[in-house]
């Protein structure tokens, strides 16, 4: 009994590992297929049965890059970076106020922030369109910067507040007794604890801003269009240019994919802490 059980367990573990791998690959197969298609000639992209072996080419990626993709990419980068910085600028003090220096009405403020996430964005799109048109912000990156900041700020405050709550109260009190002022406390005690959490929060803001579609499609066009808007151009022609569509989808997603891969540990930690504290 004692000799059989561990071996059986070992065997079970091995097959479970294989099963996990198979499930994972099946799950992401559409994505792997897209990446493969991005390196095909158009003629190889739609065949029946699908072609697994072909001569890879960078032609499609090159076509997308030279086909007007770059302005969309730079719009996306600008909007994402600026709105994330604004979220941090507004959100860090707010999270601090809601966690380490709360006053009456704190939970009301928290509730309010979260409740704004419950408002369906469609309910505001018409006034936003009219306002942007009247303020000449329509089809500019500024409209998106403002809207993405307001879109991510509530979630960011909730997440960052949880990281501020991690700071041991005794350390802050001890620092105060030793005569440290707020900037010193922030720099020496608070920031080192909350910095990873702020990074995780920023990452989530980057993902949501980069991938946002509804505002971008309705409030921008040729001038300020972001990467998702670029992809809309393929709805009409996707039947003809599968390989090019795949290349565009790959290039559009790549920046966030890479950031997300590198920082996945951060992401997990940020989500869970923000979630539960």
């Amino acid at each position, binding site marked *: 009994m004692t000799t059989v059980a561990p071996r059986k367990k070992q065997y079970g573990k091995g097959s479970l590992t294989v099963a996990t791998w198979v499930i994972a690959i099946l799950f992401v197969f559409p994505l792997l297929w897209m990446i493969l298609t991005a390196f095909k000639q158009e003629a190889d992209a739609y065949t029946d049965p699908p072609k697994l072996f072909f001569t890879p080419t960078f032609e499609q990626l090159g076509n997308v890059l030279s086909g007007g993709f770059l302005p969309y990419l730079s719009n996306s980068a600008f909007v994402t970076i600026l709105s994330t910085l604004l979220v941090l600028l507004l959100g860090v003090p707010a999270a601090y106020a809601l966690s380490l220096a709360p006053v009456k009405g704190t939970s009301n403020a928290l509730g309010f922030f979260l409740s704004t996430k419950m408002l369906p964005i469609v309910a505001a799109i018409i006034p936003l369109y009219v306002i942007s048109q009247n303020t000449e912000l329509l089809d500019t990156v500024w409209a998106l910067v403002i809207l993405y900041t307001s879109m991510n*700020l509530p979630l960011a405050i909730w997440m960052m507040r949880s990281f501020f709550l991690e700071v041991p109260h005794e350390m802050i009190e001890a620092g105060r007794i030793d005569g440290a002022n707020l900037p010193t406390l922030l720099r020496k005690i608070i920031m080192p604890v909350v910095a990873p959490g702020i990074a995780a929060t920023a990452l989530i803001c980057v993902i949501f801003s980069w991938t946002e579609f509804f505002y971008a499609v309705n409030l921008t066009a040729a001038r300020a269009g972001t990467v998702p808007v670029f992809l809309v151009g393929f709805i009409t022609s996707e039947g003809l240019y599968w390989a090019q569509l795949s290349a565009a989808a790959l290039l559009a997603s790549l920046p966030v994919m890479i950031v997300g891969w590198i920082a996945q540990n951060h992401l997990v930690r940020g989500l869970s802490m923000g979630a539960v504290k």
Partner: protein
Amino acid sequence: MSTLSVSTPTSQAKAQVAEKRGLSTAAKRRLPLLPALIFVIAVTQLPFLLTVFYSFQSWNLVRPGSRHFVGLQNYVDVFSDTTFLVALLNTVLLTVVCVFVALLLGLGLAILLDRKFLGRGIVRTLLITPFLILPAAGALLWKTTVFDPTYGLLHFVFGTDVDWLSEFPLASVMAQIVWQWTPFMMLLILAGLQSQAKDVLEAANVDGAGRWRTFVSITLPHLSRFLQLATLLGAIYIVNSFDAIFLMTQGGPGTASTNLPYYIYQRAFEGFDVGQSSAMGVIVVILTMIVATFALRLMFRTFSVSGGIK
């Protein structure tokens, strides 16, 4: 609940201390909060108030000079509009099914990943990637690569010529949304699994609890907060689903896959009917608030259990 009763006296004490120090201290403490608060109110609440205002008007952008006050007429029209009711039903169905299925799949994948095995990092990286690609790219990818009746992967696997998007439009859109959101659920649940105290699990093992028993009696209760949060966040984003419908089916065929965000978009940007789409927006907000009130209550219970509203 227990921590709430503990934390309330302390926050009261703090408030009293703040009052003693004078109003200026409380004001000073509120100061860092104000910019964020004002910003969010300005950008989210003002447009909504305008939506309410527009909803009482007959206003069609293609008929200049058509703008006038009509009272509740738009609301009457919306409720007698069968497409609106279809869209409402589709939205509820889509949200409930997608959240539930993504949650279950996410739980399964998280359990599989919560072990040490060869290539675990790579598998996790693979599995989170659908969450990282653009939803717009994901939608187009599924439309072409998976669902195409002639060259799609489903055709290749099953050998049928089913045109999935026109025969099962809502189910097809749901499949794509589930695929997109499962990794997010998985990440949250995985974080929950990994934050479990290992000694408790070992103790259960020593006490002779089987794997299933341990899962049901220890792991699931520990996970419940994470599951609730995943449900809430997932629902918030999936209720607003637009990309998949816009890019895969355009709400069709007919209205088979039209949800509320897409229908409001259509009335506003294709029908140019500001009044009616505004009325729909207001109704959606009221419905969402009814649901969200319950969700928020759940949420606050959740949050107060762990840290208390400090």
